[in-house]
């Protein structure tokens, strides 16, 4: 079974968000890394890029498939996880520990619209 953490919010496109002091930390879920298989590349935005909720902000490539990353929030990218540049497999090891980007959100209410752990668990069962 895939891990789903209680204190995070989720998009139905399998990204997770943790909002703290107006900064959203974004990654992909354990379910997503499991479905993708061995991840070989994470295409990340650059610091200062604007991202929009519901729109693509990068991509994850595994030996099985390449999938777009969809931003669950809107705002400005303030940091990316550079460790993933050389070691994308970290996402497979711990999808929640190894976030992809941090965003200064322009509308914190967007996070409230995302799924909670229970709602996301249902999506994964479908």
């Amino acid at each position: 079974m895939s891990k789903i953490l209680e204190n995070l919010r989720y998009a139905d496109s399998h990204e997770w968000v943790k909002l703290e002091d107006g900064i959203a930390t974004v990654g992909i879920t354990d379910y997503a890394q499991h479905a993708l298989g061995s991840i070989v590349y994470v295409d990340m935005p650059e610091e200062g890029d604007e991202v929009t909720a519901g729109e693509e902000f990068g991509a994850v490539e595994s030996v099985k498939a390449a999938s777009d990353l969809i931003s669950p929030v809107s705002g400005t990218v303030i940091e990316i996880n550079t460790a993933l540049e050389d070691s994308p497999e970290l996402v497979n090891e711990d999808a929640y520990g190894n976030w992809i980007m941090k965003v200064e959100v322009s509308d914190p209410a967007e996070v409230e619209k995302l799924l909670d752990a229970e709602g996301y668990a249902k999506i994964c069962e479908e």
Partner: protein
Amino acid sequence: MKYYDKLIFELSRPGRKGYELPATDFGHDAFAEMPATLMREKDADLPEVSELDVVRHYTNLSNKNFGVDTGFYPLGSCTMKYNPKINEELAALPAFTQIHPLQDEKSIQGALELYWNLQHALSNIAGLYEFTLNPYAGAHGELTGLMVMRQYHIANGDLKRTKVIVPDSAHGTNPASAMVAGLQVVEVKSKPNGSIDVEDLKPLLDDTVAGIMMTNPNTLGMFETEIMEIAKLVHEAGGLLYYDGANLNPLLGKVRPGDMGFDIMHINLHKTFSTPHGGGGPGSGPVGVVEKLAKFLPNPRVKKNSDGSFTITTDEDSLGSISTFLGNFGVMMKAYAYILTLGKENLKNVGPMATLNANYIKESLKDDYLLPIEGVCKHEFVFDGLKDKSTGVTTLNVAKRLLDYGFHAPTIYFPLLFHESMMIEPTETEALETLDEFIEVMHKVAAEAKENPDLVKDAPVTTLVRKLDETGAAKNPILTYRHLVSEDNK
């Protein structure tokens, strides 16, 4: 089998060669007349080997191949049917192999007649007005077809039509071709049974739609029963229907895309019409269209004159040229040989036999493998991995284990509608004994997955190369011979 992994460059010895050129007949030194700027400064680094070196090298390499001549090749969506040797024999006739595209057309009437006859045979089979045989393969055919679609809307002054609707179950080439053709892709959802959701389609049909791309049967091997309704809706909205011919095999001689309302289609001669497929083919992707689109087809074209002779023409309304000359002519000859060998009556047996074979395997295996969509399929079907998910054995593991038993793996992880897709297409050319043998092995692998899952997870064990490090290959690819040599010397 002895393991052989040499590169031709490793066999090279200075001065060794397998040929001797005669003295020039023309009495002058061509090199002396060449401008200095066109001359290489260093000799090309080509391998220097004897004829025997070359023959042994490539024979040894070819022995590592698995092809449809070696064994069963149930690669879904690829129609890996047997390639009859009579095709090769006819395509090798010197009267065809020793002609040149720039020859006077009076001296290549036979070749042009063959092109014209094949165009018309495909028109009859597809129910479409005119074909071009110029595109080099399936995706090139898709691009050509979409360029026709775009050209049609441009000619109508209907410039806002830039959207192409593609089902979420489509072959990956469909959205890719649409993007390359400069059009935008809009996805339409499929219903749980895999067919297009007409209710999801309706709101997408506005005056910005250029057309829809479909394959029928779809990528789950199921016939789109609502195709007439879909064609009506798309046409009413001013769009065109594109038929991806990858799945034409089960319909051959039975149902024609033109009769289903399609305006444009491509045919993969290297699938449906038995020409070699894979390893670069080469392929051929003829594109057929309805009458109102015929003038947009690419140049050059072959026309029949009133006196029965043939001529190469160009048309002003054409979208232009998409290939050098008239495409992959050798492939056309093989496809034409196939059509004439089978004849009109036998062509009609291809689809039903391909369909029967696919259903036979599907019904025989559905106790062990998860069949997400019940019902009669066409030429192929999809399992969502093993039925028993508790063993941790994945579709990839099963595919690798099949290699140990001498079968090529089916298509895996496509379509994307399921996590553990395994797409099986036996084609009509396999005998009952082969199908039974495959079914027996698939049952055996399912049993192994329960009793000894590690055996399946570690497969293949009997092949020349064991399980490959796909992550390593993607992360640290070694792409050049020199790199390989320097790695060795470290």
